[in-house]
Each structure stands twice: as structure tokens, then as C-alpha cells.
């Protein structure tokens, strides 16, 4: 980006033809290493290991299912009126949201937390953000597939055949999350209040997104507001695709893709601009 021309990063790799591809390979190897490390770190020392990744959202789903279906007596609009039908509906909101929210809040502090590493070892810092976001999405992506398969086996009307398409949308969500992750990770280095603010904002964000409800539950006048929320598309798309609830216009898919790519590019641009000054402010 428009970094001061006089300041140039050290060439850490041989200045031979194909240098860039070598840098990319190195970054990829590093990212893989950090993702593995991140996944292991999270479950290091816990008895059941990676099982927590599945158990925690399952428990969350059970609680939401109980409260929404039996306490609040929520029924799906138009479709199946049984309380059990609420469960896959909620699952398609909860898993994508968990992946999105967790990756953003974890990434926000990743640069700050790795200050020791950054101050001593030359590494492309973006790898840290990519690894954190990727590991959240990997975990919750696997959980997403697993829970849908289980629910389908239990006889829920889930169009599993369209799961690959759903994963494509999941990848779009990943790109969007990466944009926010880059932005927040960079800003957190300078403004330490950000992670505190995020902890307050993320639950709020969840409730202004159709994670635990659908658009139809809102008064007519407010339904349009949901379109300003970049997360709205995802639960709505998954429910339309896999449960046949509602429809999503192709134009909306395209717009969402553009938003995700733009967010990622913008977040990365900010990150790149601040990158060279991280060590001064850590």
C-alpha cells in the first residue's frame, strides 16, 4: 500500500526469480503450522480434546431449542409446526454465527497476544490472523456438517445433497470474517479498548441478525433493516437452501459476495498499512 517509500521491508528471501512464489509457500507452511498449533492449543490439557468443539455448540443448541420451542413456543412460519422442527432452524443460525463471531473476537487480540513472537522473529503477521480465523471456521465448519448429518439421520427434512453449496456460502462467510478479523486485529494494537467493546457488541450483533429468529418474526416496518447487516444473508440462505424456508434472490447472493470481498480487501488494506508499525505500539 502507500507505505513510506523510503521504508522497505527486509527481503527475507533470496532475490531470485520465483521469490514471490517462495514467499507464498513459506506463508502457507506457516499458516498450516499456526492452524495446527491453534487447534491443539485450544484443547491442550482438556480431557476430551477436540470433542469440546462439538459439545459446546450442541449444548448451546439444546438450550436455545428448549427455550425457543418449549418456553417461548416458537413455531416455524409456514412450515412444519412441530417443536422439533425448530432445532435444525436454530442450528443453521447458531453454527455460522459461532464461526463468524468467534473468529472475529479471537483474531482481534491475536497480534497483541503474539507480541513476544512478533518482537523477536520475522514473520508475515497476516499469517497469525489467517490462522486464527481459519481454525475457528474449520472447527465450526466440521461441527456444522456433523450436526446437519446427525439431524438428517434423525429424520429432519434437511436437503443434505445441497450441503456442498452451503459450504460455498460458508466460505463466503469466511472471507467476510477475515476482513473484520484483519481490521480489528490491526486496530486493537493501537486501541486496546477494542476487544472490550467487541465483547459487548458481538452478542448485540447476534440479536440484530436472524440467528435465532427469521425475518418474518419482525414487524413489517423493520424487516428491511436486516439488509444492512452483512451477516443476515447467511442464516437466511442456509435455511432457504437446506430447509426450503423462504427464498434468496441470485442478485442478493452476488451482492453478498461483493460485500464479503470488499470487506476482506478493506480489512487487509488497513492491516497492511499498520503492519509495519505494530512493533512500535505493542
Amino acid at each position: 500500500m502507500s507505505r513510506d517509500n523510503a521504508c522497505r521491508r527486509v527481503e527475507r528471501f533470496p532475490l531470485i526469480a520465483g521469490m514471490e512464489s517462495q514467499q507464498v509457500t513459506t506463508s502457507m507452511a506457516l499458516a498450516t503450522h499456526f492452524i495446527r498449533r491453534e487447534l491443539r492449543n485450544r484443547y491442550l490439557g482438556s480431557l476430551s480434546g477436540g470433542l469440546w468443539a462439538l459439545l459446546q455448540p450442541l449444548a448451546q443448541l439444546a438450550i436455545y431449542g428448549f427455550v425457543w420451542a418449549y418456553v417461548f413456543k416458537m413455531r416455524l412460519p409456514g412450515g412444519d409446526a412441530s417443536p422439533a422442527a425448530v432445532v435444525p432452524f436454530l442450528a443453521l443460525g447458531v453454527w455460522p454465527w459461532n464461526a463468524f463471531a468467534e473468529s472475529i473476537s479471537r483474531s482481534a487480540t491475536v497480534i497483541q497476544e503474539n507480541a513476544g513472537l512478533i518482537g523477536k522473529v520475522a514473520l508475515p503477521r497476516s499469517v497469525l490472523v489467517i490462522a486464527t480465523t481459519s481454525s475457528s471456521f474449520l472447527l465450526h465448519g466440521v461441527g456444522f456438517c456433523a450436526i446437519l448429518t446427525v439431524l438428517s439421520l434423525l429424520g429432519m427434512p434437511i436437503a443434505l445433497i445441497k450441503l456442498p453449496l452451503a459450504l460455498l456460502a460458508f466460505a463466503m462467510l469466511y472471507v467476510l470474517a477475515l476482513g473484520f478479523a484483519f481490521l480489528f486485529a490491526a486496530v486493537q494494537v493501537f486501541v486496546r479498548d477494542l476487544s472490550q467493546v467487541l465483547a459487548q457488541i458481538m452478542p448485540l450483533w447476534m440479536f440484530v441478525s436472524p440467528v435465532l429468529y427469521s425475518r418474518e418474526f419482525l414487524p413489517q416496518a423493520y424487516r428491511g433493516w436486516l439488509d444492512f447487516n452483512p451477516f443476515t444473508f447467511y442464516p437466511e440462505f442456509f435455511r432457504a437452501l437446506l430447509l426450503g424456508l423462504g427464498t434468496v434472490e441470485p442478485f442478493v447472493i452476488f451482492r453478498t459476495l461483493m460485500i464479503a470481498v470488499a470487506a476482506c480487501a478493506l480489512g487487509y488494506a488497513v492491516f497492511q498499512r499498520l503492519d509495519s508499525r505494530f512493533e512500535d505500539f505493542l
Partner: protein
Amino acid sequence: MNAVAGDNLLVEARDLGKSYPKVFRPRDRLRALGKLLLGRNDIDSVAVLRDVNLSVRRGESLGLIGENGAGKSTLLKLLTGVLTPTSGSVAVRGRVGALLELGAGFNPEYSGRENIAMSAALYGLNGDEMRNKLPEIIAFADIGRYIDEPVKHYSSGMVVRLGFAIVAALKPDLLITDEVLAVGDESFQKKCIRWMEEFLDAGGTLILVSHSMYHIQKLCRQALWLREGAVAAAGDVFEVTQAYLAYHERKLAGAVQPISLAAAQGLEFHLLGFAVNGIAQEMPVFVDAGSSLRLRVRVHSRDGRVPVIGIGIARADGTPLYGLTTEIDGVQPREDGEKAYVAEIEFQNLALLPGAYTLKAHAADTEGVRLFDTLERGAVVRGKTREFGLIRLQHLWRDVESLPVPIRSSASER
């Protein structure tokens, strides 16, 4: 990329500078963030490194010396790419192995084996290359069963062993290492030194920071002395290290700090220059014992009155040896430009014995009563002699005979 010209230049730094921002309050951080986002770089900052120029060719070995806080580690971090320069440019080519701080890049929770994998990934090694090198690394580190224990259980010596073993296995073109070897035990230090010597013999390039002049002189042919973030001297390792040691002797002796230029310029008389044997830069001068020493002093006189110039020679620890003024010898400085006066004194057949000395120039008023300004310059007298003391006194032996075989001829050489 254009900064590296020629095949053999591995490191080139030009006008390299690093400043750290002054941020005390959270508000400053927010302001800095805003400025950076707008692409402005005018953040209030403190310079820790200024205008460093250096180049290292393939096969060279450079020792970095300087006091604590002189900017040595900052320079190394700039060279390895951990830090981004604030000004100037730096280019490094080839595979760089860096051993900067104790346990840099190690995760204390992981075992030695896992940390090797981590470091390998940081150096861009893929899984296969890493597996091939693993036995070699473990053998070199030689820390036994600790290789499978978390690094947090290691002694600092073991951390260094592991770090060095990883770097050694990488076969870097350029090895950059900070004062970490000092932590290892005697046998490991020797092993490292031996490895470095073999590495240098095989055409490797080394940049070493050490406070041990012995290690620097043993391993390096060039040296660079950093003082307060700027290059104080650079060149042949022996000359630079001797000058550095001389500086320390002077410092221990509590030598007076010269007044800053700005303050001096307001004075009635101030020194414009002090050249030793024609060298005007403020870096220690090397003089051969018995040769001649020429000191040339220029003084600015605010009111155009003729100054008295004083010259002093002291041992590096401050002991005065000899001093005189133009007025004592009944001469006066010659006019040299507007309101400027110059005088040069020559000490022939320099009687100083080899060692470090401080040369002083003083500017005093016309009456030679009030002293206005002082400049000091370090000088190292070189020579081979076994005489004792500071000064060679003129002498003559009587009632003696020559030794049948002259054991040494050093005294008669001069």
C-alpha cells in the same frame, strides 16, 4: 531489490534509522492510529538508531560492539526484518539464520521437538526437509531427554543449545547472532565457536554482537561500533575494538563531556575544529609510537580577538601527561578567515608508549585566563615494546655491554 548490487553483497543498509513513537497516554495511540491510516508518518518519536550505513559481503564477518542501549539489537532486528526501518533502507539477501534473544520464537509450553518444527516453519522449511534435519539438530543440541520436555523446563543454557542447533542445521548464508552464546557452558561455547569458524571457512557470512572483545576479535575481521544509535567507528576489527576499549577507559575516568555545539557557539571563543594528523572526524586516531603527532586547532572568536589555544595530553583514565598553551610558548594563533584563528602543533618522535590516550584542545581568551571551550579526541598509540609506563624518557646506558644475542630489538628499532 535495486538496493543490492553485485552478487556478493549480502547486506546493505543505507542511512538506516529507527525511531520509536512517544506514546504515554492511550490518546496518543489513537492519534497515531489516525495519522497512520491517513498515510502520514509524522508521529512524535525518539530516534534509537540514526544514519547507519553498512555493507557486508559474502564471506565477511562483522562484529557489532557498543554499550548497552547503543542500538545493537535494534540494528540486528532491522537486518532480520523483525523491525521495519523508520528511515533509510536495508536489503538482505540469502538465507538468514538469526539467533537474536534467548528463546526467541520458542513457545515455552511446547516440547523441544515441537519447537524445532515451529522454527523450521518460520524459516520456510517444509515437512520433509524438517524431518531430514531433525536428527542433526537433536544431536547438535545434545540435551538428552529434555528434547521431549516443554521448553519452560529448560535451563537457559539448554534453550541456547536448541536455538543454536536449529540455526546451525539451516546452513544459512548469513548468520546473525546476538550475545546469546555467553549463556552456554564452556564446552558448548567452544562447540559454537568451532562451528562458526568452520562456517566462516566454508564461506559463510557472520554478523555477531558481543561484549566479549575476545570473541569479536577471534571471529570477526570487521567491526562496527555503535554509540548512542550512530556509528562511532567502523573498519578493521582490531582498530575498532581498541578504540572502543580506549573509550571505556576514558569513560571510567569520568572524562568531562564536551559542551554541545549550540551552547558553544554563543561563547566568546569556541572551537571550530580539532584535527589529529589531518583527521577531523570524531573517531579515535591511530598513531605509531615514535612517529609524529600533529594537532591542528581552529577557533572562532566572536569579537575578533586573538585566542590562546591550549593543548593537553592525558592517559585514557584521565591522568594528565603534558599540557601547554600558545601563550606559554610565546606564540599566537594565525588568523584564518573571518574571526577564525588556527594553530598547529607537532610532537615529533612521539614519546608516548603504546596505549590509549585522550587529546584535548582548549580555547581560552586573549589573556589566557578564562577557558571557553574544550574538545577531546581519543588516540591509540600502536607499537611493539616491552617498556613500562606511559612515556619513553630519553636515556643512555653506561658501563654496559651488548647481549651476545639480542633477545629483542624493539627498543633499538625506534
